[in-house]
């Protein structure tokens, strides 16, 4: 299936918004893949971190909005720590997450009732709190 790209798409509101709140210029990225090579969550991702940036460069908003990668990103910042161009993908992933979670009908991405009492007793607060902050509608 062919994908049509256009200047309007590349400059669309959503794409601009991601750039604005992440503070990142996607066009700094030259697609070397170093970020993806060191990302711990790639196994669970549908788009590599570098591909997320590439989709944003091409203005493919729908694909990016619906990708799984942002939800399995662990915000470990390894991508940024090694990017030769200083692109901070952890910020881009966060921008994508919050824009989704701020949508009117946003659904929670985790259901705390899924966790057994036993698990909740073992898990440290920081796991639950940061989990809630990353995955519940804002």
């Amino acid at each position, binding site marked *: 299936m062919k994908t049509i790209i256009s200047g309007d798409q590349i400059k669309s509101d959503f794409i601009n918004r991601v750039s604005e709140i992440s503070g990142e210029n996607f066009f700094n990225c*030259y*697609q*070397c*893949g*170093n*970020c*993806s*090579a*060191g*990302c711990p969550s*790639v*196994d669970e991702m549908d*788009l*590599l971190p*570098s*591909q997320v940036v590439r989709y944003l460069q091409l203005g493919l908003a729908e694909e990016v909005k619906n990708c799984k990668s942002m939800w399995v990103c662990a915000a470990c910042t390894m991508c940024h720590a*090694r*990017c*030769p*161009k*200083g692109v901070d993908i952890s910020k881009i992933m966060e921008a994508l997450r919050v824009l989704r979670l701020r949508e009117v009908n946003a659904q929670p991405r985790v259901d705390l009732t899924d966790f057994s009492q036993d698990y909740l007793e073992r898990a440290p607060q920081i796991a639950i709190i940061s989990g809630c902050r990353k995955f519940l509608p804002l």
Partner: protein
Amino acid sequence: MAEIAELKSVNEQGEVVTCACAMGDLSDFESVPVDRRVLVIGGGITGITAAIDLGNAGYKVVMVERLPSVGGRMLQLSETFPTLDCAQCTLTPRTVESGQHPNVTLKTSCEVEGLEGEPGNFKFLIRQKPTYVDWNKCTGCGTCVEKCPSKGFALFERDAGRMPAIYTLSPQAVPNKPQIDPDRCRFLTRGKCGVCSKVCPVGAIDYEQQESFFTIEAGAVIVATGFDIYDWKKLMPEYGGGRIPDVIDGLTMERYLSASGPTAGKMVRPSDGKTPKEVVFIQCVASRNPEFHKSYCSRLCCMYTAKHARLYKHKVHDGQAYIFYIDIRSTGKGYEQFIQQSVSEEGIVYIRGRAAKLYQKDDKVMVQGADTLTGKKIEIAADLVVLAAAIVPNEGSEKLARILGIECNKDGFFVEENYKFAPVMSGRQGVYLAGCCQGAKDIADSAAQGSAAASRVQVFLSSYRNRMNREAV
């Protein structure tokens, strides 16, 4: 008192141009002879090319080289792209010519320490490092080199092998006389041994030799001090920081592949001497990395990495080579064809992406990379990893720039007057640049700049018809 005045005139195109001219009492200026001798700093292929050109044009040239023989980086190379000529076979006629040329004098184991005078009449202070061998007596028989019991790490062989403490850089070295490395010599470090002195049939070994200084007068100088490899061992812990023995750089790979290298061209790996079966090459190591390392492209790595992988395959037929690349830059004549052939006919797998991390696991080097074309994170258990690390100016460039009164950019490369139209002219009259000291370039471009600099020197020295005016002192 004479003054420099600006005169406006109209040129043939009708444009107003400004020229400077001395006005007034010209007795303030004296006419002095221009020294038509030339100094070349650096005896690599660039300096050699410049020296031979100038020599052939009738100029007297002195070439100073910091190592004991001329030839430069090419001495370390195996075969050269894109023709896969033996580097030594193409280099030796040139080193020999520079050594035998009636107009060229070689000063090896020497470094420039100071400069006086002005363009047209420079006076260089040269430091002659001790070689601990009296070259007037030495016949170059090589007995000492054979018998020296102290083999150790030598920068020239990189990680590929060891060298005796008394050595020449190659069997065809010019001059073909040995020198002692004072750091490795048992006699000089511990006062014990003295084997070379005992075996030398002409008594040329002189442990007492001291450094000395002399001056060279010349009207112009060509700087051709070449390059080094980025210190990835110190600066790139993500690639093991030098602690993983089977991670080497391209120059070490050259020593392994070279027929005159320490393994006589046998492809083995440093840790256990086994033949590596899975070899990973990584391009753009520290290059094109403005955030942490060097922002520029090192220009050679795409080509020499393809060459390394091919030469490796020629030696280890059942081996597998992988090349991590971001882009392929193959703009020289015949280069793209060389790359295409490497990709399609040599069984090398090109992986588009970078490797983020290397680590040791049992006897393998694990490579964590990505292939951006399939969108996969890749892991390879390699026997050997070869890093195409960035080209940087040779050590001491900044000091030399201060001595010569020329400029370095932030990466330490000498700054040319005009990149397009005067690439071999430094900002200072009489001082010319050529080769990798001005920016990364391959052999063909380096040699071209060597000739270009020689030509510029001739323009400079001949434009004064032997005399020039200078302000009277």
